[in-house]
Each structure stands twice: as C-alpha cells, then as structure tokens.
C-alpha cells in the first residue's frame, strides 16, 4: 500500500464510525473495581440483614456475574396473546457505573461513605436516584434502570428470597421430585 493510499484510508475511517458507535466501543462491559467496591458497600443496606455479611457478599458477586453474562440485541420472550419482537437493550454496565459513582459522590457530600450514612439519608438518596432513573416498582428481574433496584430485584425476586419470606423450603422453579410438592413445605433450618 502506498503512503498516500494509507493516509487516505486512515482519513476515511472515522466516516465509517458514527460518534455513537465510537462511544459504544469505549463503553465498559464490566463493572470497574471501584464500582464493585461501592456495590459491595451498599448491598448489605438494601438486602435483608438476616442474610449476614457472607451471603450478602455472595449475592452481590452473583449479581456482578449477572452483569457479565448480559447479552445485547438478543430476542426477548415474545409474549402470548399480543406477541411482539423485542430485543435486549445495550449493556446496563455503563449506566450502573455512573449510578454507583453518583451515589458515592452523594455520600461524600454528606461527609461520609455510604455505610456511614444514617438510614433516612440513605432512603432519601436512593429515592432521588430511583426517581431520576424512572423506577416505579420493584422489577420482576433486573431491567437496567438503576443498579441498586436491580440488585434488589436480583435477590428479592429469587427463589431463595421467596423461601426466606415464607420461612419455608418451597424451592420455586428449582428442579425437584414432584412428590415433594405434595407436602406442606418444611420450615427453613436456621443456620
């Protein structure tokens, strides 16, 4: 390739990529260490305390793994009755990072880390963040609106949380012998 041709080719490259696509390429696909650290700090306050630190951390790690497993542009369940084609949106990770950073900044503005804030201040900050993100209800699964409500949905919509709530080993949507379902579920064994 001659030098002039090479220069022409290099000059033409930006025309093939819109500003949005360049920005997309620059978007992180994984939560940063700082974001994960912030998430770990917030998690115990938005998950039930009865889980204990170890289980809360494990749930947070699973949620982080969930973000890694997210796939963009994949057909979602079509629905029945009035079906329609919908595809998964862009990765929520860039938004999550911004939201965690914003919460950390808000906490600092109150002169503390998140865990050092009193409960009502945490509530005020979360309420404002959820409102800004358009969150109205606890979603059925993480939908990418706000990282904290998605973490909460990740846990509270799980079979594990259902069992905790009812204090019963229901094991919703968990593969098990059908005969087990014929009996009143056993109470959970307290660890």
């Amino acid at each position, binding site marked *: 390739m001659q030098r002039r041709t090479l220069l022409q080719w290099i000059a033409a490259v930006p025309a093939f990529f819109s500003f949005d696509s360049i920005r997309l390429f620059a978007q992180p696909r994984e939560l940063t260490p700082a974001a994960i650290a912030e998430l770990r700090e917030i998690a115990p306050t938005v998950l039930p305390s009865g889980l204990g630190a170890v289980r809360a951390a494990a749930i947070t790690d699973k949620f982080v793994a969930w973000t890694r497993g997210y796939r963009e542009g994949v057909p979602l*369940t079509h629905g029945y009755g009035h079906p329609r084609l919908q595809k998964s949106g862009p990765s929520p990770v860039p938004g999550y990072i911004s939201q965690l950073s914003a919460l950390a900044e808000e906490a600092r503005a109150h002169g503390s880390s998140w865990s050092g804030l009193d409960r009502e201040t945490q*509530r005020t900050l979360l309420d404002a963040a959820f409102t800004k993100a358009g969150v109205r209800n606890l979603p059925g699964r993480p939908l990418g609106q706000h990282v904290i409500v998605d973490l909460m949905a990740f846990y509270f919509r799980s079979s594990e949380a259902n069992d905790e709530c*009812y204090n019963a080993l229901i094991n919703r949507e968990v593969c098990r*012998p059908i005969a087990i379902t014929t009996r009143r579920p056993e109470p959970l064994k307290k660890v």
Partner: protein
Amino acid sequence: MTVHETDICIIGGGITSAMLAERLSELRPGVHIAVVEAGKSIFDAQNRGQYRQRAIEYGEHPWPGDYIEDQQANGIISMTMAVGGLALHWGGACNRFSEEDLRLKSMYGLATDWPIAWDELEKYYCEAERRLNVSGEPSPHPEDKRSAPYPQGPIPLSYNLQTLKAWAEQSGLKFSPLPMARNLTPFGGRGSCCVYDTCGEVCPSGARYSPDFTFKQLIAPKKIVLHDRTLVRRLIVDDKQSRIVAAQALHQDRPDDPIEFRAKTFVVASGYCWSSHLLLLSSSTRYPNGLANSSGMVGRYMNGHRFIQATANIDDQTFPGQNMTHSLISRQYFRCAANQPFVRHDTRVWESSAGRDPRLRSADGKLLFGDELMADWRSRTKGSSVRLRAYVDVHPSADSRLTLDASKKNRYGDPMPKIEHRFDEATMSREAATKTHVLGVFNTLAKASNGRIVNTSEGDYLDHPGGGCRMGTDPATSVCDSYGRTHDHENLFVVGAPTTPTGGCTNGTLTFVALTLRSAQEIAKS
C-alpha cells in the same frame, strides 16, 4: 427449480403435523411423507436447561430463532414459526371438549353442529391422550364418560392445590387436577417432570410433550423427510381436474431456486392462521378466491374462546411457587340445561402470589429496602391469593375473518394475514348475562375461607383459536368434510384447529390432535 416427489406432502410442522406424520407412518409403512415447515428446527434439547435459565435471569426468548420476522400476522397470538409450532411452548393442558360442543345447533339452536358423533370423536381423544401420554383423573361428571383410562394417573396435587381444592369445593363445584401432557415417568424418549415450572415457556426435561421429539423420532429411521426453513407459498391445481398437483416453496437460504413438492395427497397442517392464508394465497384465474373456497368460507368463522379472570384472597395458607403451572378444573358448566339461558365455561383455579409479591414502596409511598422490604413482604403473605379463570363458549359469525392484508407483505411480496374476530348475534346478546354468571360463580367460590374477589378482568383476545376452514356436510357452508378433505379438491386435506366450527370452552389442543388422528385414517386410505 428443485423438485421433490412424494406420496403425501404435509404443509406445516406443528403438533397436528407431528401426530399426523406419526400415525400415517404406522398406517402406511413405506409411504413417502414430506413435511414442509417454514421455520427452523430447534433440535437441541440438551441446551434447554440453559435457555430456561437465561429466560428467567435475562428475559431472553428460550427458543432461539423460532420466528420469521416478516412472516407475521395481524391478530395472531404467538410469533412462533418453527418445527414444533406453538406446541414448543404450550402449557400442556389436555382437556376434552364435551358432547355439547358438537351439538350446539341441535341442543340449543345455536351456531352449528359438528359433522361428527361424540362417540366417534371420543375414540380419538383416547388415542390422542395415549400418544401425548396425558396425565389425568376421570371427571366426576358421568356425562364425561371415557372408553379408556388416562395413560397416566393425575399429576399429584401440590400442597397448595390440595388446599385450594378443599376451599373451592365448598362451593358445591367438583374440581379435578388439570389433565396435562406431562410425563410422570420417562416416556417416548422424554424425561419425567421435575417441576421446573416453566411448562409454558420451555421444559428442560422434555416431560411436557413437544412435537420436536416426535419429528426427530420419525426422521432418524427415514419415516418422513423434513424440509425446514421452506415456505410453501401456493398450491397448484391440475390444469384439467381439481386435484392439487404441487406445492411451490422457497428455502430461506436459496430464494432464487424455487422448490416444487409433487405429491398424490396434500395436507395443510399449518394451524388456525397459516392454513387459511395458504388457501387464499393460492388464487388463480380459475380459482380467483383461492383454493377450497367455492363456498367463500375459507378464512371465515374464525373462532376461539373469551376468558374472564379474577383474583380471590382467602384465609387458608398456601406457599406460592410449589407448582404454579398446574391447576384445577371444574367441568360443572360444560353443560347447560336447554330450558336455561345458555352459558358454558370451564372454571380453573391456580395458586398465585398476586398482590403478595415484594414491593418497593409501602402503601403510603415510602421507599422500602433491606429489612423493611422483607418485613413488608412477610406482612402480606398471610392467607393466599387464588387465580381464577373461565374460558367462555362464544360463537363466531361469518364475518369473523382471516383476510389477506395488502398493506403488509413478506420479503417475497406475499400479503400477510389479518385476523379479526367477530361474534354472532346470539353471543353478543347474552354477553352481559354470561359475565354476570361467571362473576357469580367466582363470588360463590370465594365465600369459603373468608374469601373475597379483589379484582376481575377480561381477556382482549380469543384464546386457543381455530376456524377458517370449518368442517361440515354442506359444501355451500363449509370448506371440508369431517375428515378435513376439502369439498373442492379430493386430494387436499386440512387438519386440526382450522377445521373446528366453534372453539369450545376449554383448551383446544387435545381436540385438534384427536381430529387430526381421525383424519389420518381417511388420508391413509387415499
């Protein structure tokens, strides 16, 4: 052009196609059967656990590529177009209709009679149940007598459904476990149920019947040849006679190489939507209104049933999540005395968590998180929610139609279908009384256990749709005879849902299969 010669060409790859192909291969061993399906094969049962998990965690569709984006209908209830059809993700409900469905005209002066005697159809219900390995319990109503037992006993009732059965039966109605095509022990190359509880989406063990298993079992020993991803666009009639001589198709990957299937017999097994659509698309100078349509009935009398649902709150305690896809059914109102206002419906009961799920805000709008959220959730789990539903018998008018929509075409320029349901005058005139009756039944049920109905709603589409090629004895008012043989073309059959004159008042799949198995006897003779 690629030409395939065969004895029987089945167009469509859903549950009726699978049952027909299986039965024909038994009745006529060695006969050449081609099954042509527009959608792809998804024969990867080993991946279904993973698909299910991603559906739960990410909302992803658990049947990758089971649709054709530009081959969709206005008014259709599912986008699925793949080998296995809608029965890839049906719930597995296998209720029978009742004799009343076949004798609406003679018993009540309504709609029309089916051209089949109940005892005749009942034999094929037994065969359909055997092939689908239905799990069920005999109905407590003597009118629902059976000539053979269910191939499996009933799905064991969960603790929740046992509780709800005891509650519901205080109303005086008798309830039974819903019959379902769900293996309790391995059968037909499929596993047994282990309560994944996602029957209506995907069953990782294969316990809930889906037609892909049947097709795989027919393909391996070369009992059929499956042509998937191949869209049949029109049927061609012999120049001089009225026999169908070919089905013209295109493969998705080779649109420039037309395919012609030549056969002695053609069977349209493309479901309630695409069967009428193909016949209408196959118009020509000689048949300007499409094939099998000298009566003008193709695409008319599109049917299905309405549904009314409710949530009841009761004091009895259940534990949502035990087996949410199983239910109870009462057939009490399948029958209606001839001297009473006409109303027919099934009555269904499910466990539910409606109104008892975790929530983000308290009743006064306060944001909840952590322990507060769990405490609020727990405080609302005393007692139970119960989901109630009735599928109501409604009858179509001739204007309940599937038509070709010239404004919406696929990549080949074929107009896509448009379905608009309409009811006959008698149905319209009793609509308010029907609703009053059903809500009355729900309220009667709710009385026990300090219960009350907390919300009601009506479906805005017709479920379990059928029609469009209705069967009958009069060629002037129907498309085909009771075997699905079209009145106009002796070697062209339509099977399953499209042939039903009315939609009944409970899930239709078992009936579609039973009708198809009966058609198979006649098709085999040809």
